[in-house]
């Protein structure tokens, strides 16, 4: 099988050519391919996802970064890149180094699983999804279901003029089901999905029981009551708490926002922001988690970075530049969506560390309010410190007990007030890491894991 390291000689020659003209240059090469399968009542859709391959070259002019990229590895593409970068370097100060430490890491992780989904073949993958489809459709009232699975092999090779060479190859696998219930013109959907780095074993997360439960909830939503509105006690299910960790808090800890003086969190670094039982981390080194990386795309190893330590806001996520400007070290969080996209500070797996409250205890403690379940989206506001989390459904909490099913809703309010109002976090047995896609600004979608268990706080709830 072709390997990006087969091109090492050309990439090294490219870097050697640029070296006299710049204090630093790097090559990021990537190849990705995969497959997706989807089954519904009318069609079976299978598609090989793009065989996407190419490389980006980034160099420091003395004042700024310049970058080009090409979707080919041939001599013509490399020559064009040298010419284009060379033109950009012509007016720079080639001797001045870029801010921050340049990686000298050398390493290789070929993490292809023992049972790659690729080896299943399209036929077996289709057969598996037909089964998931049948499980969901067997629930009375479900008129349509989409059962889907996909895998993607992602190969990345990073090299720079300070000697770093980091190779990694992983396979990401995801499975999901979307049951749809329609009655009297009203349509309701629910979904379940699960994903990680690995092989066929990840598809095992989709059991008959999960598919049926997901479908039963979709059907029950046809008669769900409207959600309550206004400020109230809220219990977040593990997926919603995980989305809070990423969207609401995590984006504000990306230190490129500190450099721009754009994060509401920057002035309170070192201060208590939540109860002493609250710990929140970003961890790119969790084996098999959806957002894990062996190396980031500046050649720094993936690692665990504590953001909130027992209630105190202690850390941020850095690339080389923010680390240099803020007196910190890179944290292995510089990521590219692909070779066509820029490298900047991104999360990996962002988690609320679980506590020791059971769901029953959290609901009892809440007294009156709502349990928010099945996250569907979140939106960051690193400058203003506001939050938006949207969920597919939930249950009212009345007199310390879960009561009526309620339909989709959004949670909003101040992140800092939400953190200060946290009164308990759920146990590790409820902890899960979801498989999400994160955009930062306009696009640049990449794989991120969000983790959490149940969580009790107070926020504003409204329709969505």
């Amino acid at each position: 099988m072709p390997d990006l390291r087969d091109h090492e000689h050309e990439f090294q020659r490219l870097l050697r050519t640029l070296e006299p003209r710049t204090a630093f240059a790097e090559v990021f090469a990537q190849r990705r391919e995969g497959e997706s399968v989807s089954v519904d009542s009318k069609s079976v859709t299978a598609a090989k996802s793009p065989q996407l391959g190419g490389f980006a070259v980034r160099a420091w002019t003395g004042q700024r970064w310049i970058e080009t990229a090409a979707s080919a590895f041939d001599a013509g593409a490399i020559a064009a890149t040298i010419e284009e970068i060379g033109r950009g370097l012509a007016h720079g100060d080639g001797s001045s180094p870029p801010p921050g430490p340049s990686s000298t890491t050398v390493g290789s992780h070929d993490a292809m699983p023992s049972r790659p989904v690729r080896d299943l073949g399209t036929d077996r993958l289709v057969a598996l999804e037909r089964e998931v489809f049948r499980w969901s459709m067997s629930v009375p009232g479900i008129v349509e279901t989409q059962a889907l699975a996909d895998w993607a092999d992602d190969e990345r090779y990073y090299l720079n003029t300070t000697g770093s060479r980091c190779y990694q190859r992983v396979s990401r696998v995801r499975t999901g089901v979307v049951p749809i219930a329609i009655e009297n013109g009203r349509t309701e959907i629910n979904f379940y999905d699960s994903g990680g780095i690995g092989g066929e074993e990840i598809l095992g997360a989709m059991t008959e029981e999960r598919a049926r439960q997901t479908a039963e909830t979709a059907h029950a939503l046809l008669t769900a009551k409207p959600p309550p509105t206004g400020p109230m006690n809220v219990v977040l299910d593990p997926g919603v708490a995980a989305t809070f960790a990423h969207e609401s808090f995590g984006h504000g800890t990306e230190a490129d926002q500190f450099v721009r003086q754009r994060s509401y969190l920057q002035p309170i670094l070192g201060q208590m922001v939540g109860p002493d039982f609250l710990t929140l981390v970003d961890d790119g080194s969790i084996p098999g988690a959806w957002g894990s990386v062996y190396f980031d795309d500046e050649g720094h190893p993936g690692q665990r970075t504590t953001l909130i330590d027992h209630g105190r806001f202690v850390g941020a996520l850095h690339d080389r530049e923010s680390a240099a400007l803020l007196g910190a070290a890179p944290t292995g969080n510089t990521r590219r969506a692909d070779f066509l996209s820029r490298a900047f500070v991104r999360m990996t797996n962002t988690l609320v560390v679980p506590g020791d409250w059971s769901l029953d205890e959290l609901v009892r403690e809440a007294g009156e309010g709502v349990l928010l379940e099945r996250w569907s989206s979140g939106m960051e506001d690193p400058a203003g410190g506001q939050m938006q989390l949207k969920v597919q459904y939930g249950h009212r909490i009345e007199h310390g007990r879960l009561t009526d099913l309620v339909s989709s809703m959004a949670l909003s309010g101040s992140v800092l007030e939400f953190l200060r109002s946290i009164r308990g976090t759920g146990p590790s047995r409820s902890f899960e890491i979801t498989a999400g896609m994160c955009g930062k600004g306009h696009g640049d979608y990449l794989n991120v894991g969000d983790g959490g268990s149940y969580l009790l706080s107070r926020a504003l709830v409204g329709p969505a």
Partner: protein
Amino acid sequence: MSADGAPADTAFRVADRLGGLEGPWDVFAERSRLYEIHLNGLRVEMVRGPIRLEGYGIRLLRRHGDVLGVGFQASTELSADGVARTVSEAETVARWSEFPAPKAQLPTAPGPLRTFDILDPTLERDAAGALDAYVAALRGAFEGKADAVPSFGSVKAIVAETTLANSSGVAARYVHSMVEEELAIKSFGGPEGRPPGEYWYTGSERRLRPEALPDRVEQWIRCARDARRAASPPSGNLRVVLPPEVLEAILPGVIGFKFTGAAQLRHMAPEIGTTVGPASLSVVDDGTLPWGAGTTPIDDEGTPRGSRPLITGGQVSALLYDQLHAGALGTTTTGSARRGSYFHHVPGRRYMGRVAPSSSTTVVAPGTGGTEAELIEAAGDGLWVQQIGWASPEAATTAFGGEIRLGYRIRGGKLAEPIRGGTVGGLLMAPNGGPSLFHDLEAAGSRPVLCGEVYTPALLVRSMTVAGAGSGTATAAP
């Protein structure tokens, strides 16, 4: 000329390598150059480009009994071996896929393509230079602004050559451009000692418009200043005015699925003739609108684009089809095939996506509501929602909603204090005349604006549910 000045015609070269491949097949290809400038404050932080991407997707239609196998594979491998591998993968996929179309049919040659305004000539000539000049003008527009700067931003310009070939003789080519702009403007200083406020603009259009910058920068700065002093909205059912920027975040996400053959095939589309709004409501899908983000001479499988009324006089009048869904449903294509997902219709990357029917540019017919000031006056008491964090429209249920990033109370028919936080949401369409944005449409303004994939005036909605932490509640007039 191709996107980079070289003879490209990617799809034609790939088609030549298919030899005697059995039809039906099509090859959709894009060859693009992307340029970006990133700002940190007013400083240029990074210059990217050219980012050169050339790729294609091969689709094969294979009959298995009474269903059609649709094989699709996208690739950047253009060598003879790479194309052969791509075909082989697509054949494998075709064996296992099933689509209920009775005939395997693709469009025939459309004849000479009409030309549309979809390519910025300055970007075609010198994209890097044009982008550089635009960013210089953008930075210049902030000169002398004592209390506001961009905290970060980026401007991206893409020039893409699209080529399409199929086994029925289609060999089409066009070049188009897209500009994506993102700018966070921070307002600070002033006597009140409040923390900085921010307005975060994102938008896309087909051309650079430096002449619009002075007015736009003034508006962004005004929004950033207002965000500083904004308070939470009240809770209740309120009259709400939604400007085109907010409607752009709602309409394509729902209409792009709900009004298509893909939804009809799965019993999720509205029936033709269903009343979904007042008689004043008319919505058209227009793939020919000058400078429209969804405008192209042909759709993504080779049928000429056109315009199609989706809602006429408040009633559903038509749906959108590509060739395969039209075949499955016993009708004809409306030239509405699109590649890529709702989030990824980005020129240059569309070749990666499978074909499905979807909307192009959604046009809401102007009404008699007059100017935005007149709509506000008609609202009397309510909210103007300037920006929602993410409206996250749900195509199947038509639900949408999110946090209010910036808005204004409307009091006595005039814009009053700014608001921020809380949520607004609901359904775009509801069964049986239930509450929804369309059903509760009270008035459409008279001045439509092109905004991303919509061309619409501001809309006054009689009642939408708002949840806020502000004091008091408000209720719409019956």
